[in-house]
């Protein structure tokens, strides 16, 4: 970067460019658009069964699968790991496969009328036995969720390194943990929603929807409807949080575009919270058994993992449902050095809501698993958990992992030491002992982990994905008045990317961020790109912004060199001015823009008109890292857990805007604490969702989240051109393990463990009731 640190814009906590509209109630969200027609979906009340009949009163406009014969099912593809492609019809055809599956769509003039009409639609379903639990779905003779998927195993990966068998055989001791992470819902505050408007002049449809991936949405909807992409425009306006739930294609959006074309008007659907909780994508729901072989010094020498991921009834587009089990297989060893590795990971179909990526994707669960193993080992060796980690964390870089991942330079040990420095472990242990004597149970929990970010094309290709969303393109233009527009394919929705990209560009071309408008979320206005997910946008769109800005810079310096009769190499762009270094000769940057458009005659045909550049960035990928520490109190009488303190020391490379980075980590940690303690989608034995309101599914409030203390290392990464790594998911990845480890430390005197998330009061009480020891 041309200007680094406090002298430039990068590294400063400037206020967000996004905020003035949002703070005044002038944001534009999907549900704010007026529409001629409102759509309500009739959803299955049975988890499994055959649709015998659908009937509606006269005068109600009802769309069913019978009307959609030309619409293809959603059928994402993966080319490895015995993946069996399955299709999800936009509206259920003859069978239903989960409670909440859309069976019919009702169209009316208002939402209230649409809801009344939907209530009047009668769906006759002959119910069948439902599979809710993934291990039950693996049993011999279990019914099949999709007939083409034998044994309900839709994807299966297996790996065993050549070193595994000997390492395991030679281990001093073998330790096992069996962990379970129950089902969650990402719960963005704005539920999903779409608005499709037909334009009679052009025949095109504009789909405005609450999505993280507008371009891929256009591709998918056009493919499914058999349209050229040019007939569709997709807009992601202000999006009220996504966290992954909005990066997968909802069948509802396909139907909206189909309806807008058929009615030649505008149609809108606003998902309500109940629909979101039962039928928007779910997440987690993994069962992992780990066995670690340790040598006599506490060094992990072999690791064996068995992963069962409940993927629900269908496979999500674009990643496919394989993302959870396969990421578990690839990244289970985490930041620990181990050569002997064996893993079997499978994705299992059940009659439940389909799964999709949710912030952290698999890693909150695998970090939970391996961090439980590490603490089990620490106890077995009579060591502090931090000491056991010191003996196992990767310290030499680049490090080629047992699963062939290349770990670039990171600070696994250093962030742990930094966290411990701010905790005072000895003081805590003394306090813990004193409080135990008084019948109060405090515990401390650590988790050390990596966060793979900035996945490029090869990283996705390695998984065998049909669509490899690795790159981003950024177009930057300066208009004749000197204002800058950066059009990006990424699609931020709360991450502050308009601000951070403007900071990166500003340092390169010498204008203030407020003069740079970052345009995103409109397929008519932005270059093709994949969107915002997987901690990728600042890394990849940021890298592309830097590359494009360098080209703009080159052009501006060339123009200035011409006009100031100096070499382009001697031109400095700073504070809105181009000047010849070491002289007082200068020109305002906007005058360079004017000249590039209006006075081309001054350049002897050596300058192309205008200022518009474009660049693409496709990095190899990198790993951020952090150490989280939780201190909790467990009330053994009620099972209630109070998080007293939470601290994180992290390293995500160069920090572009410290305020925004802290905000990302805070939010991630809150979601991680909620994963550990509160949030669970509960099904009954028949496949009905029991947690269909926010009074039952429990996102945390300000009362449940303690003050979060953050510390940063800023190792300048060689792996990305901005030196920045991603930071969007780390909080969510590390926090659950830290909290559960802290709970287990607190209840250690009872001689029992809890290895299930969320660790609700009921589960903690159940574990304590079963305890044989009384402290």
């Amino acid at each position, binding site marked *: 970067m041309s200007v680094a640190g406090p002298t430039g814009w990068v590294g400063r906590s400037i206020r967000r460019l996004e905020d003035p509209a949002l703070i005044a109630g002038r944001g534009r969200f999907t549900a704010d658009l007026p529409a001629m027609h409102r759509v309500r979906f009739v959803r299955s009340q049975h988890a499994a069964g055959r649709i015998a009949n659908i009937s509606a009163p006269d005068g109600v406009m009802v769309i069913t699968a019978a009307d959609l014969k030309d619409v293809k099912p959603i059928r994402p593809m993966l080319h490895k790991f015995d993946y069996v492609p399955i299709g999800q019809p936009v509206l259920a055809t003859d069978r239903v496969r989960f409670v909440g599956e859309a069976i019919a769509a009702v169209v009316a003039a208002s939402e209230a009328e649409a809801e009344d009409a939907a209530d009047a639609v009668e769906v006759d379903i002959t119910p069948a036995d439902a599979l809710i639990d993934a291990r039950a779905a693996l049993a011999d003779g279990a019914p099949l969720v999709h007939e083409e998927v034998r044994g309900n195993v839709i994807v299966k990966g297996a790996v065993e390194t050549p070193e595994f068998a000997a390492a395991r055989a030679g281990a001093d001791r073998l330790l096992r943990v069996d962990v379970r992470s129950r089902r969650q819902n990402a719960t963005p505050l704005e539920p999903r929603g779409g608005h499709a408007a037909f334009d009679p002049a052009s025949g095109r449809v504009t789909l405005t929807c609450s999505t993280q991936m507008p371009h891929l949405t256009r591709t998918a909807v056009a493919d499914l409807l058999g349209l050229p992409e040019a007939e569709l425009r997709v807009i992601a306006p202000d999006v009220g949080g996504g966290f992954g739930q909005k990066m997968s294609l909802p069948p509802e959006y396909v139907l909206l575009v189909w309806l807008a074309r058929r009615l030649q008007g505008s149609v809108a659907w606003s998902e309500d919270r109940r629909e979101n909780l039962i039928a928007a994508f779910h997440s987690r729901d993994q069962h992992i058994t780990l066995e670690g072989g340790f040598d006599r010094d506490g060094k992990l020498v072999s690791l064996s993992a068995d992963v069962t991921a409940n993927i629900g009834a269908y496979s999500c587009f674009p990643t496919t449902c394989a993302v959870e089990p396969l990421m578990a297989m690839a990244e289970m060893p985490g930041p620990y050095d181990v050569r002997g590795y064996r893993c079997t990971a499978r994705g299992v179909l059940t009659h439940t809501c389909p799964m999709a990526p949710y912030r952290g994707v698999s890693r909150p669960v695998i970090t939970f698993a391996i961090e439980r193993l590490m603490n089990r080992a620490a106890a077995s060796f009579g060591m502090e958990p931090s000491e056991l980690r010191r003996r196992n964390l990767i310290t030499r870089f680049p490090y080629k992992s047992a699963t062939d991942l290349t770990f670039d330079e990171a600070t696994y040990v250093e962030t742990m030491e930094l966290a411990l420095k701010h905790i005072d472990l000895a003081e805590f242990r003394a306090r813990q002992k004193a409080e135990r004597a008084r019948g109060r149970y405090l515990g401390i929990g650590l988790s050390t982990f990596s966060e793979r970010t900035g996945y490029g094309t090869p990283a996705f290709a390695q998984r065998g994905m049909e669509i490899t969303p690795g790159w981003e393109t950024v177009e930057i233009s300066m208009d004749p008045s000197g204002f800058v527009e950066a059009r990006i394919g990424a699609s931020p929705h709360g991450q502050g990317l308009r601000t951070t990209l403007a900071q990166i560009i500003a340092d390169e071309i010498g204008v203030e961020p407020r003069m740079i408008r970052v345009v995103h979320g409109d397929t008519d206005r932005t270059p093709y790109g994949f969107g915002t997910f997987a901690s990728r946008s600042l890394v990849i769109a940021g890298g592309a912004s830097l590359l494009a800005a360098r080209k703009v810079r080159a052009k501006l310096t060339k123009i200035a060199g011409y006009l100031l009769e100096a070499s382009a190499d001697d031109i400095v762009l700073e504070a809105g001015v181009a000047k010849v270094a070491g002289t007082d000769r200068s020109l305002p940057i906007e005058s360079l823009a004017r000249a590039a458009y209006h006075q081309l005659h001054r350049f002897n045909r050596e300058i192309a008109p205008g200022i518009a550049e474009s660049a693409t960035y496709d990095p190899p990928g990198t790993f951020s890292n952090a150490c989280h520490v939780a201190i909790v109190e467990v009330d053994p009488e009620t099972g209630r857990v109070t998080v007293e303190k939470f601290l994180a020391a992290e390293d995500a490379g160069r920090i572009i805007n410290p305020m925004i980075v802290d905000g990302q980590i805070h939010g991630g940690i809150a979601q991680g604490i909620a994963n550990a303690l509160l949030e669970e989608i509960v099904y009954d034995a028949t496949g009905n969702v029991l947690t269909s309101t*926010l009074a039952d599914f429990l996102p945390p409030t300000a009362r449940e989240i303690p003050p979060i203390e953050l510390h940063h290392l800023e190792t300048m990464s060689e792996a990305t051109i901005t030196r920045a790594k991603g930071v969007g998911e780390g909080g969510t990845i590390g926090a659950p393990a830290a909290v559960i480890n802290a709970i287990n430390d607190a209840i250690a005197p009872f001689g029992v463990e809890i290895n299930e998330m969320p660790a609700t009061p009921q589960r903690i009480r159940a574990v304590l009731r079963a305890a044989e020891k009384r402290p």
Partner: protein
Amino acid sequence: MSGKRDIVLSVNGRDYKVQVEPRRTLVDAIREDCGLTGTHIGCEHGVCGACTVLVDGAPVRSCLMFAVQADGKPIRTVEGLAAGDELSVLQRAFMEHHGLQCGFCTPGFLMLITGVLEREPDIGDEELIDVLASNLCRCTGYQNIIKAVRAAVQELRAK
């Protein structure tokens, strides 16, 4: 449905004469009949607080109140917080302390806190956290919302 009723919604000092079904919620009337879409709908069952507005100076969940119940009463929404281009102390504090990310819950938090601070300017810090626990935010982990509110409280008390 039963017939529509004529009511007057007095929002941010302006009267909107609207016809609503008795079952129409206040938030739907504010958004669709008055065209003020700054107030958001997050759950429609009174938990998340995204739809919080002030009615008669008190914070209410506008998804749990019928529009007819607010007939003639003074209503304030996020659009009425700033005086022209001059943001309120609380709005400025949210921007300075990064109290918002996606911005969807923000109008509800702003109205909740504005209402509480007007009625209880000397509210204690612990009670303030209890008040903030009325609404849900999914992005910030509440850290910077709390920071922003504390800063606003200090500034308001210094005035």
